[in-house]
């Protein structure tokens, strides 16, 4: 095992898959040698693989995804980077109407082996247009797979799987996760889609958390432990497919659930997870289901305001207390 950052884990996945398969290439704004990605995930890649396979694009999100779709249906395996998740708004037609639907709509004649990588999340004071978590939209777009790793291990393993998958994969990253460190094997590995991870076992309550919130949930669980509350923390890791079995199994065991996702509350990822539990495990529940999320506001710039709205360890603890 070795310690790497989430950023480097992603980068390793890119390097390995590009070495493994000539049809894999990268395109996006400033992913090339002059900037190496806004968050440096593509650092050094243009040097290794050349500018043909690590392509800087103009600021044209819709064409980035459109071109990736066109390349994907003609034998290539593009990885498109959208610099900030908020900017996927400019490419929604290409993502949702084209990439996601082509396989079905054309009766299976084509598949779209495309990965769209983009960072979501707040916490770095860059305000309403650069801080959203919009994963929920992409769950509501049949034909897409949606991946949301929280650790370096999963980041690498899931990205490799995503690149090899023949479907369009919407791959969510998080700005604050890039620098966090974790252990990964020396040898190569992959992580399958659709399999949740029990991050921490517990008996009294299940905290289902995604991305950055997994770490906040673990911190919350550690604190709750001291109060005598044993919390299980579950990380779905992929949102489509969603490992509903793991979720339901854990909730049946504990009888309580808090769902923690950073996106704003209404119609967010948490709504879907809560709905699944309410449909499949209601008889096992000893308390109301509860969501922890950003309230329904844009993300404010001012640091104390931003801190106020983003969910964290403390808001999770508070939520757990209301139902235990």
């Amino acid at each position, binding site marked *: 095992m070795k310690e790497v950052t989430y950023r480097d884990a992603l980068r390793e996945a890119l390097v390995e898959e590009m070495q493994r398969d000539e049809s894999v290439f990268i395109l996006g704004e400033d992913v090339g040698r002059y900037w190496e990605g806004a968050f440096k995930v593509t650092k050094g890649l243009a040097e290794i693989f050349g500018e043909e396979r690590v392509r800087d694009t103009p600021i044209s999100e819709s064409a980035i995804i459109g071109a990736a779709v*066109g390349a994907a249906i003609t034998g290539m395996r593009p990885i498109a980077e959208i610099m900030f998740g908020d900017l996927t708004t400019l490419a929604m037609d290409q993502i949702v109407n084209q990439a996601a639907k082509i396989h079905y709509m054309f009766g299976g*004649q084509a598949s779209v082996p495309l990965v769209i990588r983009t960072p979501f999340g707040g916490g770095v004071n860059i305000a309403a247009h650069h801080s959203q978590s919009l994963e929920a939209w992409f769950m509501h777009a049949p034909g897409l797979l949606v991946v949301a790793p929280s650790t370096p291990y999963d980041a690498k393993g899931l990205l490799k799987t995503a690149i090899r998958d023949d479907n369009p994969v919407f791959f969510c990253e998080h700005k604050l996760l890039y620098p966090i460190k974790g252990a990964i094997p020396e040898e190569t590995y992959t992580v399958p889609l659709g399999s949740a991870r029990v991050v921490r076992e517990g008996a009294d309550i299940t905290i289902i958390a995604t991305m950055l919130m997994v770490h906040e949930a673990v911190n919350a669980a550690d604190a709750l432990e001291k109060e005598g509350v044993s919390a299980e923390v579950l990380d779905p890791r992929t949102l489509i497919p969603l490992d509903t079995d793991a979720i339901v199994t854990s909730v049946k065991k504990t009888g309580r659930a808090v769902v923690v996702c950073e996106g704003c509350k209404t119609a967010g990822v948490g709504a879907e997870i809560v709905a699944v539990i309410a449909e499949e495990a209601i008889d096992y529940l000893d308390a109301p289901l509860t969501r922890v999320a950003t309230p329904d506001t844009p993300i404010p710039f001012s640091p104390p305001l931003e801190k106020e709205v983003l969910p964290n360890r403390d808001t999770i603890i508070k939520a757990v207390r209301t139902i235990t």
Partner: protein
Amino acid sequence: MGNPHLDPDRLLELHEKMLIIRVFEERVFEIYGQNLVPGTIHLYAGEEAVAVGVCSHLHDDDYLVSTHRGHGHCIAKGARLDRTMAEILGKKDGYCKGKGGSMHIADFSKGMLGATAVVGAGIPIATGAGLSIKLRGTKQVAACFFGDGASNQGTFHEGINLAAIWRLPVLFICENNLYAMGTRQSQAMIVADIAERAHAYGIPGVSVNGNDVLEVYRVTEEAVARAREGGGPTLIECKTYRRMGHSRMDPAHYRPKDEVDEWFRNDPIRRSEKELLRRGISSAELANIKARVSKAVDDATEFALNSPFPNVKEAYEGVYARKERE
């Protein structure tokens, strides 16, 4: 008429192809009236010279990206009439097993990468097909069809610019039929020739009479050659005109009678017929062709009408590609 040197046999071929599209579209119109076609349809009749003039330079492994008005593109690129018609009727034997319909036909076996019903959305996709060609190092080209209305979409700007800077082998074919639904071109843009927009991307732009199959043939020849040699994309504007309304239910009252009359006189098939007669093809031969075409469309229609609807279980299948690479 352009290109006097074109071999008459070749012109005959082009003519027959155009005629197939015309008769096919008339048949679709007819059976739509009999309530046999679900949904809506956007007929290509009147614009045949564009698809045929362009596609006669494309090989089976060249790509084509199509639109809501795409039947003609399919046929010109070599798709079978019967499976095309079956798709339009939503039948099991349709190219997309009935899941796509008129606005989403594709035939990947002939490089026909499918129609999108989102106006302009095909443009960056064609750019991507061009990028794929470049990365794989083949000599293919991609032809992208879209309308005058589509040229006001952001995707036109982004998609063509990207193809331009990367010098991709893409032909952007603007089928300027003067209207986007009820909106005249002049209401939607100031430039008279959409080809002028090519300058914004530093690529060649050319505007031709899209009802003259030989003109379309000629300019495409040049553009395809340039593309295959690594010279990058071309924007070709073909001025043309629909024979019918925008969609099946549209009486197209917004088009002045004079304008309609003039364009109908300038019909691409009438033109090629006249040219063929001038070049000494006999009326009998033309009649022969007509009969052959009619029969082909009859057969295709019968096939499509007889094809069953897909099993309802199919609705749930094929959302995701199952094959995962190890």
